[in-house]
């Protein structure tokens, strides 16, 4: 089976700074993949290259759906979303001053068509589409667990719910691949558990999930495979247990000598 996402020899430099060096790995459809590494390793930069916010300096990113392979390195972010890759942000980027429901409705943008004329004359098509947008938005809210809060202002919601809302909005774009950037940040164990369930339910809907995460319980609990990068380079890859015990990985997180210490201890 063709992997849904192939990253091949990806380089990204900012001026003189090499953020990503020769990164290669694949993601297969239906997997939940974790992307981990110490702070500053380049994880978000990698997300940004896939999502189109940054243009790769070199290398290829190939997104394959329905046996069609598309090169997406360097495409504009809105095009990437239309193709079927959605992402959330490390620092939650909601439309703070809009309602919860509007946030998700905006997520439906790339799957809908009505324009100025439809808006003004309220054609049959536009009315049907609006109805669909509202109904599906409510369904997405229910799916992530914040049903019935549609009219609240996004910024007034508790932190954990804001995270869920951002995920709902991303899901509303009907992605095949969902990239979550530290979704469990700031969550307590209960909330993390809820998040893990949500991620599994997302995967059960047929959406591949790639997540950056620091919370190891979440990584171990929900990821089937883990990719480790450090200093912009691929370090290790494998099932969570393997990676956890990989001496190079331990060293990356805890510093040299820690691997030995871990073995002795």
């Amino acid at each position, binding site marked *: 089976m063709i992997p849904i996402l192939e990253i091949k020899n990806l380089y990204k430099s900012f001026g003189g700074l090499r953020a990503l060096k020769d990164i290669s790995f694949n993601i297969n459809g239906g997997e939940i993949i974790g992307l981990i590494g110490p702070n500053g390793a380049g994880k978000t930069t990698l997300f940004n290259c896939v*999502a189109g*916010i940054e243009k790769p300096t070199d290398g290829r990113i190939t997104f394959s759906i329905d046996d069609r392979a598309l090169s997406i390195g360097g495409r*504009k*972010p*809105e095009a990437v*979303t*239309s193709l079927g890759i*959605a*992402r959330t*942000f490390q*620092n*939650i*980027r*909601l*439309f*703070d*001053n*809009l309602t919860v429901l*509007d946030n998700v*409705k*905006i*997520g439906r*943008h*790339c799957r*809908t068509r*009505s*324009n*100025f004329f*439809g*808006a*003004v004359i*309220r054609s049959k098509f*536009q009315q049907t*589409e*609006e109805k669909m*947008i509202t109904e599906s938005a409510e369904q997405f809210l229910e799916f992530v667990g914040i049903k019935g809060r549609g009219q609240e*202002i996004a910024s007034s919601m*508790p*932190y*954990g719910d*804001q995270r869920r809302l951002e995920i709902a*909005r*991303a899901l*509303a*774009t009907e992605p095949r691949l969902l990239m979550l950037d530290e979704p469990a*940040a*700031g*969550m*307590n164990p209960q*909330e993390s558990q809820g998040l893990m369930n949500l991620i599994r339910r997302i995967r059960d809907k047929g959406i591949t999930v790639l997540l950056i995460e620091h919370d190891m319980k979440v990584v171990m609990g929900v990821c089937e495979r883990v990719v480790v990068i450090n200093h912009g380079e691929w370090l290790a890859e494998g099932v969570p247990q393997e990676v956890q015990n990989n001496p190079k990985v331990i060293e990356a997180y805890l510093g040299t000598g820690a691997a030995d210490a871990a073995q002795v201890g």
Partner: protein
Amino acid sequence: MDKPISPNLTRGAKIRIGLLILALVLPILPFVSDYMLHIIILIFLYMILSLGLNIVPGFNGLLDLGYVGFYGIGAYTSGLLTYHFGLSYWLIIPLAFINGAIWGILLGAPTLRLTGDYFAIVTFGFSELVVLFLTNEIWLTRGPLGLPGIDVVSIDLTLFGGPKWEFVGEIPYYYLALVMVLVTCFVMYRIQDSRLGRAWFAIRDDEVAAVSCGINLLTYKVIAFAISAAFGAVGGSFFARWVTFLSPDMFKFWESFLILCMIVLGGMGNIWGVMLGAALLVSLSEILREVLPLLGLPVEVRFLAFGLIMVLMMRYRPAGMLPIPAVAAKMRAGRKKRKKEKPVAGLKS
């Protein structure tokens, strides 16, 4: 977007219906003079212009300093088409709309990728060039001599063997302007509650997040600019057929600033706020025009007052009189911290 759930009308809706009824019967009331009607028509005109401009800073968060350029283009196009070809105003309205939109796209496409400051300056430069063009191209516009003798609006049924009824006095123009304001208002409401409006609000709130939802920034900004320009041109077309005389110095930067004042004062992004701002400033302008000479002050003090009002508004009430939360948050002091603070681990969020 507050839909009353109960069968009783909300207070807001009652006020609006009351105003509408008042507006409908106003010209018939005994104490209403032609002068008063003239002022109210002026208010209606500026409401249309304000609603048009409101799209750009109010719905999209960009500063357009060159709005008078579209107003002027609309006015002169309307005036010239009438002067040379005797075109019916009912044809001119859609033409003005389309013409305005085209100019909006022409100016917007290359410039809307610029940051806020540069965009403001470029729009300013554009409107200045329009005035220069109107002043200098005498063969076309008669330049500073102005364009007099533009036909009044008329309803011409001669093609169907009927009469030709010309607008005489202020009353017909009053009702025409009222209808145009209502239509403009209606369009704005429809846009606000639609996919297009939501895309604009998304851009205004957070461009990066908007892009991640599949919204192409440039496309939607250009659409906003084009529609804004279209309404400016329509306003201009009305102006030409109403005052029946045009001259380039009616379309200077001051007008752009004045309309900007109206939407800022009233509450940017708020349809009613913007209309209120128009009503207030036009009234204030007329009141000052009468009162200042009585105080021994030159009429120009009006402008000074407006400048001062803007400075004070920005200082104390930047979101305007009827603010909407989305814009109020953006206009208030205190740069919003972009990072969402992660709650300390262990505390219940």
